[in-house]
């Protein structure tokens, strides 16, 4: 394929458009984008792939053979892609300006869309086709115009985050419900009426408990803590709880600063009335989530406080998370309820 | 008015620039008062600074001793003679008295002299017995010098210090300078100069100390310094003392330029307070300060400051603080005051600590003189807008009311005390007086801890 071949450009546009569309899909946009990419690859595989070309069933050889196949049909130059093994992982690197999908990739970044590498996606497809195994992909930061990514065996069967089967809605394979704001607000108001002193504890603990199970599950899929955290925060966004942003994180010091714009809780307060007598921080549910996520990812007890809240007039809610002082842990055991 | 600067350090300030040209000046004093040196320097400065050749007429010393004396100050008179800038005339009084002014006229013409020193005219007396003719003779002599366009210094011996004899010479000449070598309390002597008359021009009256230094005479014109620099604008902003709590008592701080006495017995924390005032001023407000110590050496002060983690040495290296040590034995009051003014000005000091004014008290037993010196010091510092802490001995122990006198000159007084309360020794601070500040009265707790002095204002009215 020629460098400036219009059909290659149009393929890029297609992915870009899909990416943008998927970003507007309420749930699991990344998952659906992945499905598109592997779907396209599957059609190609059905027509052009021959297992006989394989030298071995090592992932490295499978991917090489697949790239050679693509070269044979003049779609790309297999030599542009460098593949190497690193333990169970397969590392791929390519010069940015040699990548077939560069326009899509660059524009998607510019537009702030979730990044998903199509090339790695197709390799996932061929690995699944040949080996029947699922692989996950992750993209590392590119430097000096070289893109680096990796494929690694997925820990379990790949589970889509939100799906619907008839009338049953599922999140991560478990049944889920969609609650309108009013219902949620009513729930809180009822708690306040029956046990006003318990309200903030209820919210925090609810966040913490549910956050723990989600975090453990994600951790299994994404071993890299920072990437896993990003994904978990992405999910909060996807679930409509607020536009969460990781401001800073230090794995070594086990601290993080997270911001949330337009938190769901703030919207509920604005529309359905305030839960407390005075303006104060109210996003205890989110606080619980973050504390749970970070406790799992940092592998130690983390406390998270909401320092400022949009409901008090700030531009955003800001959360600070730090490890629980060790001295206290030793003396009292774990003061945090664990499931 | 055509004035001739003498070139003698500090002297010209006393006569507002110099002696009127053609005038004759009588320099009188007891032996050893420095008359000859005064006269020689007058001639020497004329040659070197103003290109005015001179003549020295001596009746009592041999030229050799004059050369030698001058050479002690590094003045090579022989070289000037060879360069035709100077003539030294060694003659007898008889020769002078006779209408032999021609002898002088000759040498004056030779070098084109403008200045003359006659050492001394007392010898006229020894050859002329009749007072009337003596007077006429001296008068004629002086007139002769004036005719030659000479400005003259005439040396006259005085027999004793106590007796003031208004001799006829004083009427004949245009100006009279008296030199004294006075005794002071303790083992101290000092030289004093007084201009008792200047015809046709003004001078600063009073006694002024002077010193014969390696480079000649230096007059300390104390009165002069209070008149200069008055154009420096006064800032209204208060100055933070750097002592926590003290500014609260002062309702913000000290008025700029104020001199404040810090009085207290030993161990009440006066020196620490002074050090803190400078250190915090330098570190927190970037203000330069001088510590003038008459008692502790810089090393002792550095060590003292280190106890509070203040690196005085480093601050001195950075040019923020200057520690000046002057041992009591070498201290001259007027010189110190003038030197201090100069240092404050050249260093750009906004803060000054003087530790302690006992040095002044020990030198001066006359209350009026003490008052005057202090007035000069305080006024000078005030003009320079330098806010000063004058560390002083405890009020009650100071000799006979003299300390009260000082407190009437300064703008403020802080008393540091050490009292026993419930069997514990407690330090206290009282703002006894602070001109222009509605300060908090009464005793307040003062503590010295690792970070320095802290005052805890008493609660309630």
């Amino acid at each position, binding site marked *: 394929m020629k460098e400036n071949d219009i059909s290659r450009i149009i393929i890029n546009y297609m992915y870009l458009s899909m990416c943008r569309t998927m970003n507007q899909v309420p749930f699991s946009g990344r998952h659906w984008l992945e499905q598109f990419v592997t779907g396209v690859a599957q059609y190609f595989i059905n027509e052009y792939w021959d297992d006989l070309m394989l030298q071995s069933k090592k992932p490295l050889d499978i991917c090489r053979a697949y790239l050679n196949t693509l070269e044979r049909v003049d779609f790309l130059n297999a030599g542009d892609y460098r593949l190497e093994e690193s333990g169970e992982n397969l590392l791929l690197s390519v010069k940015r300006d040699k990548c077939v999908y560069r326009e899509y990739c660059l524009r998607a970044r510019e537009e702030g869309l979730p990044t998903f590498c199509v090339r790695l996606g197709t390799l996932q497809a061929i690995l699944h086709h040949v080996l029947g195994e699922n692989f996950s992909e992750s993209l590392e930061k590119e430097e000096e115009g070289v893109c680096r990514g990796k494929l690694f065996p997925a820990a379990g069967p790949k589970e889509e985050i939100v799906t619907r089967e008839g009338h049953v809605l599922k999140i991560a394979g478990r049944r889920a419900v969609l609650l309108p704001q009013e219902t949620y607000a009513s729930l809180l108001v009822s708690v306040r*009426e*029956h*046990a*006003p*002193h*318990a309200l*903030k*504890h209820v919210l*925090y603990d609810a966040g913490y408990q549910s956050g723990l199970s989600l975090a453990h599950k994600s951790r299994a899929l994404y071993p890299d803590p920072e990437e896993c955290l990003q994904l978990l925060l992405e999910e909060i966004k996807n679930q409509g709880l607020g536009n969460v942003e990781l401001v800073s994180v230090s794995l070594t010091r086990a601290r993080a600063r997270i911001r949330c714009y337009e938190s769901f809780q703030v919207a509920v307060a604005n529309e359905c009335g305030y839960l*407390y*007598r*005075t*303006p*104060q*921080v109210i996003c205890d549910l989110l606080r619980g989530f973050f504390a749970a996520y970070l406790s799992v990812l940092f592998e130690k007890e983390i*406390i*998270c*406080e909401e*320092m*400022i809240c949009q409901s*008090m007039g700030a531009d955003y809610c800001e959360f*600070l*998370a*730090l490890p*629980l*002082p060790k001295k*206290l842990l030793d*003396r*009292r055991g774990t*003061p*945090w309820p664990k499931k | 008015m055509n004035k001739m600067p003498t070139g003698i350090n500090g002297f010209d300030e006393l006569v507002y620039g110099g002696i009127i040209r053609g005038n004759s000046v009588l320099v009188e004093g007891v032996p050893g008062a420095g008359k000859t040196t005064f006269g020689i320097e007058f001639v020497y400065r004329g040659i070197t600074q103003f290109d005015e050749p001179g003549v020295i007429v001596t009746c009592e010393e041999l030229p050799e001793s004059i050369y030698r004396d001058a050479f002690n100050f590094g003045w090579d008179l022989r070289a000037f003679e060879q360069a035709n800038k100077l003539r030294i005339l060694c003659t007898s009084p008889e020769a002078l008295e006779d209408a032999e002014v021609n002898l002088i006229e000759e040498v004056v013409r030779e070098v084109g002299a403008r200045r003359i020193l006659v050492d001394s005219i007392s010898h006229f007396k020894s050859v002329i017995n009749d007072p009337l003719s003596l007077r006429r003779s001296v008068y004629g002599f002086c007139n002769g010098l004036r005719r030659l366009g000479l400005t003259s210094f005439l040396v006259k011996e005085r027999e004793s210090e106590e007796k003031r004899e208004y001799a006829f010479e004083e009427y004949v000449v245009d100006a009279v300078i008296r030199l004294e070598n006075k005794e002071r309390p303790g083992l101290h002597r000092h030289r004093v100069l007084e201009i008792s008359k200047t015809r046709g021009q003004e001078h600063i009256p009073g006694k002024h100390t002077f010193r014969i230094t390696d480079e000649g005479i230096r007059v300390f014109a104390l009165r002069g310094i209070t008149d200069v620099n008055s154009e420096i604008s006064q800032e209204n902003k208060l100055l933070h003392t750097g002592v*926590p*709590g003290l500014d609260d008592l002062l309702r913000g701080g000290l008025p700029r330029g104020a001199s404040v006495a810090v009085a207290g017995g030993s161990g009440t924390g006066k020196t620490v307070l002074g050090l803190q005032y400078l250190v915090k001023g330098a570190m927190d407000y970037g203000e330069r300060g001088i510590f003038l110590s008459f008692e502790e050496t810089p090393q002792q002060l550095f060590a003292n400051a280190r106890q509070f983690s203040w690196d005085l040495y480093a601050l001195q290296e950075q040019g923020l603080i200057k520690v000046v040590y002057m041992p009591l034995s070498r201290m001259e009051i007027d010189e110190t005051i003038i030197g201090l003014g100069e240092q404050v000005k050249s260093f750009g000091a906004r803060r000054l600590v003087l530790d302690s004014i006992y040095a002044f008290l020990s030198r001066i037993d006359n209350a009026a003189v003490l008052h005057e010196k202090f007035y000069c010091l305080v006024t000078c510092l005030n003009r320079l807008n330098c806010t000063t802490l004058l560390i002083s001995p405890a009020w009650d122990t100071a000799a006979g009311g003299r300390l009260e006198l000082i407190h009437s000159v300064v703008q403020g007084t802080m008393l540091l005390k050490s009292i026993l309360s419930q069997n514990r020794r407690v330090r206290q601070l009282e703002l006894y007086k602070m001109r222009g500040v509605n300060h908090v009265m009464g005793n*307040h*707790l003062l*503590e010295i*801890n690792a970070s320095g002095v*802290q005052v*805890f*204002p*008493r*609660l*309630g*009215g």
Partner: protein
Amino acid sequence: MHRAYFGVEGLDRNIEQGLSYGSQIMVEGDSGVGKTVLAGEFIKEGLRCGDTCVYVACDEPPAAMREHLLSFKVGTPVYEETGRLVFIDAYEEDGSAEKYALSDLRNLEKYFALETEVLRGCIGRRVRLVVDSLSTLLTNLDITDVLDFHRARIKQLRKKGILTMDIFVSEVLEPRIITITGHLYNFILKMNFSGSRYNSVRLMQIGKVKSQQFVSSSHMFTISPVYGILVSADMGVYQ
């Protein structure tokens, strides 16, 4: 205008308009009745409301309050790091590891200077100040000194808009001092044990609310390790 509450449901319900910043609260009560727990509630509420909380520990080291708050899942390190929670150690005297420590408990001037210094660092923020307990600082002092200190301090705190809670342990000070000092407070809360020795209950009673109506009945309360102080009425439904 911001109003402040204690963060104790059954108590807050009794002060509908809340308290203004610059008010002074006197909490007087028996030893062990839960004054420090109330102080903890007050601080927790303050932290949630964005206030800066200053806690003066006179009867226990500051670490005790730190742990108390942590046991309620309040992330004290986060707040201390951001300067929102400040401890003054008025317990250890020499050898305190705290940033702010009172080296000498015998001089009220020194306490006043330290308190002023800490509050100076909070200018421009809403501040809650808790002294636990003030009665400890005032013991063994001359009554005129106490009153001078008290008047000067309360005046300053009011001027600075500091919401203050001063705790007094019952029977530490002369009743006369309590009565006179009480005049300067906007709000007085009494906490004590009642009932028999074998079946005692905790009671709290609002003794005074300046320029507000209040019900002066006693409320029974308990201390829960999760919720802190629970005034008995909170347990039921109310509207």
